[in-house]
């Protein structure tokens, strides 16, 4: 069975480069990537997950408003019955330079399973997703 993930850039953010690269990397790693692209709302993430039976959302935010844009997503997932949805988020999540641990704790508290700083290697996310989904290690 193929594992489906929803990939997108949340909010009013049109940074597409990282999105294309995550698409490539997760697809190549064997996931079925449903890429809803840039400028995507929470609602668009949820309906894409509902329609495709996705097990995880891979969310990017590069323009600094990630905190506002991601608030309440876990609750909306629960309401929609997407109870075990894995929520991954990464990028420049807040405005300006801030302590990374603080940022990470904030997003973990918001119900995210994994939080990545800017410049993270997509391979790390893929390894984490394999672990979280209890998939066998690739050869």
């Amino acid at each position, binding site marked *: 069975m193929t594992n489906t993930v929803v990939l997108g850039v949340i909010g009013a953010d049109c940074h597409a480069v990282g999105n*294309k690269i995550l698409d490539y990397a997760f697809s190549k790693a064997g996931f079925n990537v449903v890429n809803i692209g840039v400028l995507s709302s929470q609602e668009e993430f949820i309906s894409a997950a509902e329609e495709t039976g996705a097990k995880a959302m891979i969310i990017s935010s590069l323009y600094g408003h990630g905190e506002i844009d991601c608030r309440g997503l876990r609750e909306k997932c629960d309401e929609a019955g997407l109870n075990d949805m894995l929520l991954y988020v990464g990028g420049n999540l807040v405005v300006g330079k801030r302590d990374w641990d603080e940022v990470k704790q904030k997003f973990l508290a918001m119900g995210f399973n994994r939080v990545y700083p800017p*410049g993270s290697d997509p391979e790390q996310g893929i390894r984490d997703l394999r672990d979280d989904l209890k998939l066998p290690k690739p050869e």
Partner: protein
Amino acid sequence: MELKNKKLSMDEFLRIRQEVLKQWPTGEGIDLEANVAYLKQIPEHKSFPAKLRWAKENGITLAQPRAGVALIEEHIELLNFLDKEGGADLLPSTIDSYTRQNKYNECERGITESRREGRSLLNGFPGVNHGVHGCKKVFEAVNLPLQARHGTPDARLLSEIIHAAGWTSNEGGGISYNIPYAKKVSLEKTITDWQYCDRLVGYYEEQGISINREPFGPLTGTLVPPSMSNAVAIIEALLAAEQGVKNITVGYGQCGNIVQDVAAIRALEEQCNEYLTAFGYKNVYLTTVFHQWMGGFPQDESKAFGVISLGAIAASLAGATKVIVKTPHEAYGVPTKEANAQGIRTTKMVLNLLREQKLPLSVQQINESRMIKAETQCIIDKVLELGDGDLAVGTVRGFEAGVLDIPFAPSVYNAGKMMPARDNDGAIRYLDFGNIPFSDDIKAFNRNKLEERAEFEGREVDFKMTIDDVYAVSKGNLIGRPEVETEAAKSIKKYLYKTE
């Protein structure tokens, strides 16, 4: 209305205009004749076209920063700081993201909150909300020509307001402010809307007032092969000229290989002039703009100064009419005004040192230039063919067919099938052609160049190269060398990463 590359009649223009001016209250009562009177009395040193012409005739490369904040007084202070402390030659007003999406209510909130908090909560200057009065206040408080720089798919009202306020240049175009900046806005819509912006400038030209238009050259700023961005720039220049625009600055974003950069911007100017002539557009005064590195920057400021300087040097050696300046804070987002001025001072120092110097012609540059022109021509020819001779229609169909294809663009109207990568000298080549209709010679040239690199690195020509290249500069290199590699590459990598 059917899309067509044809100058809007004055009647059509005025009919659309009535709707445009209603989009927000500040549009009310903007009077073209009054604007003409105002624009006619602008002193020469504050006219964008005049300064560009002076620079081109004297072989000078001008420096222009990016900058914009929410409130008028703070924006004026910022611009004058960049003039006095930075030595900027041309001033910008970078427009905020809400205005770009025509969300003027949100701008209003942003302005109110910025006043309350005493700092800008918008990432640029909300020109539409400040209206002609506010934009004029800015223009009259500065001592240099002023341009709007944005990323607005529908910039019609904004264009009406800024030109009425004496801003004599506007950046953008129906392709370059859509494909890299929007997700679901159709090209029919943005080309039509930018025809309006261009027709407005054409109207002023008819009244004897010269206003500059600048297609946004770098597009996604991420490994765009020169021929692709040149094709888009030339198409937008032709679309603008059809509407009566007479002063055009075509742009190009630094790739990083000096020979390719110089060849590309020189090819752009030459080929654009050829197309303008072939299409019968006379007396168009063409200049060029070189954008310092638009991709990811290193976080370390000393390294950022190196990237900025290299861009200034390439712009200067290429003889670009102006250069758009980055700052040492680039990796962190919006810079302080001090950091912005630093970037300008570094750039100006380099421009002054190299003022008398251009890159001398070499066999390599001639070949590079020929190849860029040949590739560009393949693309434009096919676009015209698809449009049955109509450039606007051909552009829409060209994107549908993937003949025009911008790497890493967010728009659903972009095919995204073409993939670029650097060759072993750092020049950007086509890795996957997608549906771009190149001749076999051109395809072979690109493939061979990438195979040279692949052999050196001991890996296959593959999208992994593209990914490695995207992040290379922010990691301190031009070419994204692989993890596993040949002895030669390993030896060099040992050096490059010795302090990491």
